[in-house]
């Protein structure tokens, strides 16, 4: 049998690669202790960053500020765009941010209804993103929509049904298809498995993990579920009261937590 060494061309992709997203001293507070402060990190292509912490720790505020949906009080978010080169998100034109949102970025909301158009068909939900990046050929749009429905394990016979006729798990998978159809570089996810029952969660996690590794996506995922973080994230940021208290490799943070708050969080999980 061949050894692995024979099958591989050595990969050194971690070297000399510019970050996709660089965040420096980002602050956004609604009130003292409510929001997030002094956030700095780099996200590299293909990396999955998990943001964990209890409710109200500032995770979702941070996600909104990172994804150009909430202007921070101070700090910079620099994104390395395929189309526009290096850009400072909050110093650039609103129109450029809009273009990013519908092409190079995807946003997966906790509630699928926030990310879908509920009164148009599943096919149209996927096709809309394609049309937004200039695709005009109806036949091709429909073919791509069918491909993506298949990729997220939705029967293509449902293409003309509205999302309101779908189960919660199917809606979430449709939302993912709608986001991925334009081959984004960076996906923001806010509790993507949050509202789903456990049997559906596992399937969605498996789907997400496969898509992320196959497409080489960079992902920033907010979750309060440490099991989800362990399965999907390469590294973690632990937040408490708007501040990052610990960062590191996912299994390192979860198996050998250093900060008192992370230790509390990890030791509070029910074991099965």
């Amino acid at each position, binding site marked *: *049998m*061949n*050894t*692995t*060494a024979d*099958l*591989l061309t*050595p*990969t*050194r*992709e*971690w070297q000399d690669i510019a970050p996709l997203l660089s965040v420096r001293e980002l602050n956004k507070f609604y009130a003292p202790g409510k929001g997030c402060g002094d956030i700095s990190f780099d996200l*590299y292509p293909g*990396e999955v960053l998990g943001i964990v912490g209890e409710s109200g720790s500032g995770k979702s505020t941070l996600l909104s500020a990172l994804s150009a949906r909430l202007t921070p009080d101070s700090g910079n978010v620099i994104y390395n765009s395929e189309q526009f080169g290096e850009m400072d998100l909050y110093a650039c034109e609103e129109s450029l941010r809009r273009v990013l949102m519908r092409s190079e970025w995807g946003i997966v909301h906790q509630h699928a209804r926030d990310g879908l158009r509920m009164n148009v068909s599943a096919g149209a939900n996927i096709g809309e993103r394609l049309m937004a990046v200039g695709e005009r050929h109806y036949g091709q749009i429909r073919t791509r929509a069918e491909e993506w429905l298949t990729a997220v394990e939705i029967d293509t016979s449902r293409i003309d049904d509205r999302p309101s006729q779908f189960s919660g798990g199917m809606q979430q998978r449709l939302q993912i298809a709608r986001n991925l159809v334009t081959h984004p570089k960076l996906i923001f996810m806010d509790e993507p498995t949050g509202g789903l029952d456990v049997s559906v969660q*596992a*399937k969605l*996690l*498996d789907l997400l*993990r496969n898509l992320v*590794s196959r497409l080489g996506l960079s992902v920033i995922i907010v979750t309060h579920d440490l099991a989800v973080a*362990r*399965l999907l994230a*390469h*590294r973690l940021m632990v937040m408490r009261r708007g501040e990052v208290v610990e960062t*590191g*490799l996912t*299994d*390192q943070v979860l*198996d*050998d937590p*250093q*900060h*008192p708050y992370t*230790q*509390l969080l990890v*030791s509070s999980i029910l074991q099965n």
Partner: protein
Amino acid sequence: MTANQLMIDVSGVEKTFTLHNQGGASFGVLDSASLQVRAGECVVLHGQSGAGKSTFLKALYANYTVDAGEIRLRDGEQMVEITQALPRRIIALRRQALGYVSQFLRVIPRVSTLEVVMQPLLDLGVDTALCEAKAKDLLQRLNVPERLWSLAPGTFSGGEQQRVNIARGFIVDYPILLLDEPTASLDAANRKVVVELICEAKARGAALVGIFHDEDVREAVADRLVDIRAI
């Protein structure tokens, strides 16, 4: 890999656990631990339960942080100092150069056994058919019945899960392989298969560090026994 090449170089590693939520209780586990392992060598850690064998092994995998010292692992031409490396460097290292077989299988529920075993090799971009062939070969050797391959391992017995885990750990020919009691709940026949897999890994030039409680396995694979308190 060149014969006799230094693969693992640990010096002066210290590790203390502090339990902040239990009165700040603090335990020193490793105190200036040092170890060198060369290609083709299998080092077996021994020492009483609680002596820090597992902690040391987890530090080698960067699963645990250390308070002081250096851990340098070979990745091709380079030695990577993992106590200071960025997460993505460690992930790249684990993907191609550093394997770890734990006592427990930790996977996404509902993913089939065959896919669980193939995944690490698939992640390296190896052709699916080759991954599948190698996974089947390993599962067969480890006596995991073929009718289980399409099922998720979540409901398997402890010993079956452990054999799936071993197959997953050996699917990539890692230059460095860490083994944390991989034979703990296996019968004699399957222990023998694991011994064969370890010997094959040594023969292709891998450096191995392991913890084994079965004396027969230890005798069969160890080039050196190292007392954890003495390193």
